[in-house]
Each structure stands twice: as structure tokens, then as C-alpha cells.
């Protein structure tokens, strides 16, 4: 943690809501990206992300600064995401229609005004593929490939040995490649 973050966390622990607001600003996209990729649903992701931040606020007293604040926040996000009804299951099937419906084009365009048609298509392909994975594998893959965390950071966030993280990511990639080949989703 850098000095600014340490000070903000200390203030927030003492009950300073403004300090927590600044922490939120710095970490909102990190939590949002995991929440959205796990659920594939804007409303569900917003509920999940809100739950993560409110829990973080209530439990700041238990954060002792022995790990990075972001890792601690990822850990809360992981727990909430795996407990969520929507993100806690895999769809086990994938059709063109389902893939198209997985991303609400209107909401996506409203929330990402600079995004073009190509980006929407990328989102649909990604959402379609991720939805077929078991939740733990999906989460590990998101943290690695999209969030760019190291295997060690993922292991800490998921409270799992590094070897298990490697195995989950490797199997997730194999499954995605197989699904992509089978469905022709990636030419």
C-alpha cells in the first residue's frame, strides 16, 4: 500500500465516509470489471459491486494492512461473486441466440459511449465463452487474463494454493478453446 492509500484506509477505519469515498473512486473499476465479467449482467453486477463496497466499509476494522488493500478487496469480491446466484453457476451450453442476449447492447452502449460495434461483439463473444465455465475457473481466468493479476495474487484472493490456481486457469483455457472450436465462435 502506498502512503496515500494507507492514510485513506486509516481515516475510513475511523469512520470517515469521505475517505472511503476516495477509496471507492480508486477501486471501483477493479471491482466492477470482476463483478460484470462474472455475472454478465449489468443489474446483477451493480448489486454485487455495491455489496462488496458496503461489506468492505463494515469490515475495515478487520483489515490490518498485512496484505495489499486491493488484494483484500479482491478477496471480498471473490467471496461475493462465488456466492451470487447468477455468477455462481455455469450455463453449460451456448447458442448464437444466447450469446447475443448475454450482453444488453443498449445498456452497454449507454455505459460505454466510446465503444464501437466491434467492442460490443468482443463483449458478446467473451461473455458467451465465460458463461460456459465453472465459477471458480471463470473467476481465476478473469483475474489472470483480464485483471492481469499474478498467480500468487490470485491464490491469495481466492484463498487457494498457487498450484490449484494454475490448474484452474489451464483447464479454463482448454475448455474455452474447445468451446470456441465446437461452436465456431472464434473463426
Amino acid at each position, binding site marked *: 500500500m502506498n502512503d496515500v492509500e494507507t492514510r485513506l484506509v486509516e481515516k475510513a477505519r475511523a469512520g470517515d465516509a469521505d475517505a472511503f469515498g476516495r477509496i471507492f473512486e480508486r477501486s471501483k473499476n477493479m471491482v*466492477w470489471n470482476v463483478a460484470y465479467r462474472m455475472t454478465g449482467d449489468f443489474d446483477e453486477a451493480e448489486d454485487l459491486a455495491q455489496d462488496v463496497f458496503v461489506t468492505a466499509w463494515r469490515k475495515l476494522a478487520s483489515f490490518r494492512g498485512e496484505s495489499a488493500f486491493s488484494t483484500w478487496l479482491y478477496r471480498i469480491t471473490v467471496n461475493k461473486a462465488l456466492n451470487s446466484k447468477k455468477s455462481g453457476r455455469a450455463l453449460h451450453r451456448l447458442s448464437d441466440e444466447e450469446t447475443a442476449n448475454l450482453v444488453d447492447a443498449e445498456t452497454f452502449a449507454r455505459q*460505454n459511449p466510446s465503444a464501437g460495434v466491434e467492442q460490443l461483439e468482443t463483449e458478446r463473444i467473451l461473455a458467451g465463452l465465460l458463461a460456459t465455465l465453472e465459477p471458480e475457473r471463470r473467476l481465476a481466468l478473469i483475474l489472470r487474463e483480464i485483471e492481469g493479476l499474478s498467480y500468487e495474487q490470485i491464490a491469495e484472493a481466492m484463498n487457494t494454493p498457487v498450484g490449484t490456481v494454475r490448474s484452474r486457469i489451464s483447464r479454463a483455457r482448454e475448455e474455452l478453446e474447445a468451446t470456441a472450436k465446437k461452436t465456431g465462435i472464434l473463426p
Partner: protein
Amino acid sequence: MRNLEELFKNTPRLEAPDTLQRRVMEEIRAHEKERKPGWFDTVADLLRSSLTHPARAGFALATVAVAVAVSIAVNTPGIRAPRQIVQAPDMSQINDYMDETLDDTYAGAWGVNGASSMESDDISDFVATHVESVFWIDGGSDNA
């Protein structure tokens, strides 16, 4: 889009919606008073910061030793357990504290992984999610 690598490379980081901030901050303001640390938080913090891990272990062992000694004494013929009826101590604060600090860890460890244990990658997965997390609660840090 030719392969997975390209797909991941082209996946942009999304911006959180503005409504999220409003929702979170409204909730935080509503609970702001609850987060002000009370005397119990202060005492807990002091204890936590003053005790090292070996000291904690020693304290736990001493507590167990006392409990065993009392149990033996009470069950020894000729020694009668005190019959005075005392009021049970108020545990509500420590229960609240346990709820605050440990609930989610258990929820993550048992609730979710328990349901999918049969589909776990391998035995190390199972051990990691069901057994290690229990020890990790005591020995780890910053439980969420």
C-alpha cells in the same frame, strides 16, 4: 478475432457506472454511525496489536489448561461444583464482532465451495477450499 489471446488482448477495462457510486455512498452514509469504533473495537485493536502470534498461542493454551483443570476438579469425587446461580455474561458484542469479521470467510469457504466440491479440480482443490481455509482463519491475516 482469431484466438483466445487476441480476445483477451482486445477486451477493454470497463468503467463502473455512475449509479454505483451514488448507491454505495448512500448506503455508507446510512451506516456511518455504525462504523465509528466503540470501546470494544478499541480494546480488540489494543489486544490484537499488543499480542504477538506466540503470545496468542500461549494465551490459548493457558485458557485450555484452566478449562481442563476446572473440569477435572469439578468431576473429582468430594469436590462439588459451585451451586451459586450466576447470570450469563452478555456475549452480544463479541458475537457481533465475530459476525463482522468471520461470517464472509465461512460463507466463502463452506457455502460455495461445499456445493461444488464434487466438481473440484482435484483433491488438492478440495483440501484447499475445505480444510486450509479453517486453519487460515486463525493463522492468516486480513480475513475478508
